[in-house]
């Protein structure tokens, strides 16, 4: 994912884990793949996505809000920086 270095970080993705049902549309439709399926479970037993930027700094969120639009459970909040 080194090609993503040319993009500037524009936003962070906050996942409201208690609402997630694990369909992973967000993980699949993200153009820069900033989300990944996490190991931990929420109260209902689903694996919510985790924001990869905190783990891997080469992955950059460009703030397109597509994950927010595709989330059927209103579980994603994209917070733009500045």
């Amino acid at each position: 994912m080194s090609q993503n270095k040319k993009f500037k970080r524009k936003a962070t993705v906050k996942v409201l884990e208690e609402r997630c049902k694990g369909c992973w549309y967000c993980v699949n439709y993200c153009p820069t793949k900033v989300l990944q399926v996490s190991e931990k479970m929420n109260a209902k037993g689903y694996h919510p996505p985790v924001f990869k930027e905190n783990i891997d700094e080469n992955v950059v969120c460009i703030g397109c809000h597509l994950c927010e639009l595709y989330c059927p459970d209103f579980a994603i909040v994209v917070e733009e920086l500045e």
Partner: protein
Amino acid sequence: MSQMTDMRKMEEEWLRTERLPHVWCPGCGIGIVLNAFLRAVIRRNIPKEKMVVVSGIGCTGRTAGYVNVDSFHTTHGRAIPFAVGIKFARPDLNVVVFSGDGDLFAIGGNHFVNAARRNHDLLIIAVNNFTYGMTGGQHGPTTPTGAYTTTTPYGNPDRPFNIPHLAISLGAPYVARWTTYHVNQLQNSIYKALNMKGFRVIEIISQCPTVYGRRNSMRSPMSMMEYFQKNSVINNKASYEEMELTYNGKIVVGEFRNVGGIPSYEERYEEIIRRAQE
């Protein structure tokens, strides 16, 4: 703060967040449609007290319970008659009927046909998931020919409803069809329709991985979305034959009809009241 971030914040106000997570299955498309609808309403700057959401029974019928505006969860198939009543009592309100295919076209089929014929001022958001989801996946009037459901284990012999064709033939001024894959187009379509008068129909092809997909070799939510992605074709000038849905075939989407200037039933009724008073 950007516009999109503000919109997400407003969306939380339009939802009854204390009732979330909602009852819909993982990957259900109704949440995507509701998301697009709320964003379109926020973009239109419609105040909460000027909006009414009416739903029937079924998975999509649950929508009325999640929007933080005055909403009606009506009897099965009767969402449109309730909405017509609301519109007559309070013509200043924006009345939206948010219901499923079984509710609007099977049990409430006659109400749909007659409300469209009279051109009532309603926005119909019809979520078509090809099946009766809540009762366990029986075949319905929108199940494509040959599809496998719990009640058609050897394939469905019926022909499905061609909803855009039906609505256009009855003179609806705005008719569109999208899938849940087309999130932005769907949002723009609802945004456009909210500013129009008359019987506006938006059909949304939605996924039901739990009871429809798993019997038709699309077990996961993603595989149903991939089916929509690969097979949908945007064609605003599609013929009626092309609009027909076939089993695992092409889904023709687009804005099939967008005409203005047709008086709605409420406008004609006001005219009659005025003439009678003279």
